[in-house]
């Protein structure tokens, strides 16, 4: 999928315009003068009012620029086309496309449909269709199960037609009855398919008539459940966000702004801003003029490049920190909040245990909202959960480098990063970001030093889920895609890194200066490449300085004692 940036109508109408508050356009020197003024003078409005450029003349009129859509102009319950009855979801889609004539073409460009993304910088083939993660490991070869979260109907193997727009699933994102659900596109092992039995039939006509802009629950049906359960994968995306208080997320809070996901993940022709495959780690453009910046989901695109009110020295310093600290670092003090835990460790080595020949599962963790979570499943192994987690912090330039099925590594390597990332203080593009760290023991090709596709889902005897034979599952998982497999598998430790960006707390809960600028327990204790006042010191200097000061005091004490005991009484004044 091409990068969804800079489509023509999202282009700035005034390319010369530097967006934002006049403050942002001040030179460093001029800004420097402010620091002195702040301390004695009342804040005065910046005199530089800026000047709006005259739009450049062009021979052909560009399309008119509209504001964001609000409200609706049609009541879908009144459309005869949606009265039903519908035999299946695809028929609903065909009804939708009858009016929304271009939507199919638009939608088929986006990653929810393609599950494919080629990194424009590294050229790596990414996307769920290809990648290996350190949760359920791979969708490829297990499409029958995993494509429950494909925004389409019927993808169960390589034969799926990605050009058939009637196979788009409009309802999963747009229906608002809450009664719509999806089931696996293939039967799978009887041991697993039992999980999906006995569900009530879906009233497709009611669902079709309920369509609206996507609600949090729509996106959440998949994105809150990534990795095989509630908040398993991301840590900052859980069912707690369906109706969160503003203390959990200041933007999505139902008692506050009540933002849907698309308030920030702005949409242009069914392509969304803010993909994890293409992170904007440091937005240098800030807010746009009306009609601009429909291309990013960054904090700065609404809050600007100087988001803190400059009414104190601290406010000034905070705006200075924007250069090197991602907003999320201070404003998301912890993730997996709101009572739903996330998985931080997964051990595939223990998968496959059976009782009387049957798979089983064990509950061993009660999360904040009182629900029990599985800590062992025969089909997956052991899980470790955590909540209210302090993130890991690191310089991040937005670029992830993935260990894909093609990546060869030292078979004796201790740890493999599924998605290593780059960034440093010096590159000018990075900021210090918060991450969820996911640790897993997972199968790999011990002979070749590669990750493997594991065949988990299927009706055959090799599918791991139901048969619990890892050797056979990997053998088939690799063979199905013509991949070279040494025949010898082992388990290797892997890490994946999840940039944390949701669950933004109200500002009163944001980190304070002393959470990082402190000698002990600094949030940024492990972040290198900076001199962090309060955290950093030269032990030699501190040692010599302390000796100097206490040596001086000792000298004074000795001098005073000698005076007291040596001085003839009569000579004292």
């Amino acid at each position, binding site marked *: 999928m091409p990068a969804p940036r800079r489509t023509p109508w999202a282009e700035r109408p005034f390319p010369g315009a530097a967006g934002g508050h006049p403050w942002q356009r001040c030179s*460093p020197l001029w800004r420097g003068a402010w620091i002195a003024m702040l*301390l004695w003078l009342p804040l005065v409005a910046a005199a530089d009012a800026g000047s709006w450029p005259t739009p450049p003349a062009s021979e052909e009129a560009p399309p008119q620029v509209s504001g964001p859509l609000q409200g609706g102009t049609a009541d879908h319950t009144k459309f005869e086309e949606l009265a039903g009855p519908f035999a299946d979801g695809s028929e609903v889609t065909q009804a939708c496309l009858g009016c929304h004539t271009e939507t199919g073409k638009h939608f088929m460009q986006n990653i929810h449909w393609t599950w494919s993304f080629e990194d424009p910088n590294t050229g790596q083939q990414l996307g769920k269709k290809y990648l290996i993660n350190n949760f359920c490991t791979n969708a490829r070869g297990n499409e029958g199960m995993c494509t429950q979260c494909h925004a389409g109907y019927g993808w169960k193997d390589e034969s799926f037609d990605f050009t058939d727009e009637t196979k788009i699933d409009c309802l999963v994102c747009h229906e608002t009855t809450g009664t719509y659900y999806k089931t696996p596109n293939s039967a799978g092992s009887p041991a697993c398919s039992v999980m999906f039995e006995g569900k009530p039939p879906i009233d497709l006509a009611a669902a079709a008539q309920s369509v609206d802009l996507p609600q949090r629950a729509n996106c959440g049906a998949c994105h809150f459940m990534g990795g095989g359960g509630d908040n398993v994968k991301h840590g900052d995306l859980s069912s707690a966000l369906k109706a969160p208080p503003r203390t959990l997320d200041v933007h999505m809070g139902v008692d506050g702004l009540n933002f849907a996901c698309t308030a920030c993940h702005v949409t242009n022709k069914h392509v969304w801003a803010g993909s994890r495959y293409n992170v904007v780690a440091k937005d240098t453009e800030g807010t746009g003029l009306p009609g601009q910046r429909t291309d990013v989901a960054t904090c700065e695109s609404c809050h600007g490049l100087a988001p803190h009110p400059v009414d104190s*020295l601290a406010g000034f310093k905070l705006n200075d920190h924007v250069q090197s600290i991602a907003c999320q670092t201070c404003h998301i003090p912890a993730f997996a909040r709101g009572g739903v835990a996330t998985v931080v460790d997964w051990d595939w080595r223990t998968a496959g245990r059976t009782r009387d020949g049957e798979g089983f599962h064990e509950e061993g963790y009660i999360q904040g909202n009182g629900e029990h979570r599985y800590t062992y499943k025969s089909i997956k192994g052991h899980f470790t959960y955590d909540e209210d987690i302090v993130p890991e912090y690191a310089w991040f330039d937005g670029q992830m480098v993935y260990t894909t099925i093609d990546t060869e590594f030292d078979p004796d390597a201790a740890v493999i990063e599924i998605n290593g990332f780059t960034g440093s203080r010096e590159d000018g593009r990075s900021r210090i970001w918060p991450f969820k760290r996911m640790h897993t023991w997972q199968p790999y090709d011990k002979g070749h030093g590669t990750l493997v596709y594991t065949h988990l889902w299927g009706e055959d005897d090799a599918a791991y889920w139901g048969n619990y034979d890892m050797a056979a599952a990997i053998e088939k998982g690799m063979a199905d895609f013509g991949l070279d497999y040494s025949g010898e598998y082992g388990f290797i430790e892997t890490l994946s890194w999840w940039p944390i960006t949701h669950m933004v707390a109200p500002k009163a809960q944001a980190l*304070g200066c002393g959470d990082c*600028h402190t000698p002990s327990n600094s949030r940024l204790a492990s972040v290198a490449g900076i001199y962090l006042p*309060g955290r950093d010191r*030269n032990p030699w200097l*501190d040692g010599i300085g302390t000796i100097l*000061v206490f040596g001086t005091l000792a000298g004074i004490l000795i001098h005073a004692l000698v005076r007291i005991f040596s001085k003839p009484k009569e000579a004292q*004044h």
Partner: protein
Amino acid sequence: MALHRVKIFSLFERFWHWSQMLLIVLLLITGFGLHGFHDLFSFEDAVTLHTGAALTLLVLWAFGTFWLFTTRSWRHFIPTVHGMWGVLRYYSLGIFKGERHPYRKAYWRKHNPLQALAYTMLKLVLFPAIWITGLIYLFYFAWRDLPDATAYLTGVALIHTAAAFAILAFVFIHVYMLTTGHSFRDHVMPMITGFDEVDLTPEEEAYLRKDQPEDIR
């Protein structure tokens, strides 16, 4: 030559001294707090106080420097070896025998040679070291994108901290010195009232009695 009580510290000089004292104490306390030595203030409050006190002190120094040169008072601080040996001998030996301090304040030389040297070094070495590095530190946002800015910041912080340790040691010695010779009170009062015992030449006395009678008692 005769001892008289003469006003040697003008109102501005006393204001300068005591506001400088308060600011330096505040700077030392907040500065070592920022460095992680104590938690009396939150980091945010410490930065605000430290920066505010530092900029205020710079303004005070600007006025002080102007005053030093326009009143020719800077000459009090010219280092000299004349009489230095006597002072050094006094502090290391004579003081223990109950001897009298060998130095007599003169009208144009109100500090003893050791004091003059110490204050001169403070004004010319330690203070510049700390305020120049402090300003560079404060303006980090303006040069943070230079190559190796982090390494430079580390060096700047090192010098700044080293100067702070030295100034703290100076403060201890400075205060201790007040207890030597006369009583502690006798040393502090001149900086409050402005008057101290000064050895005046007949010409200086005649001049003061005629032109500045309020400055001599």
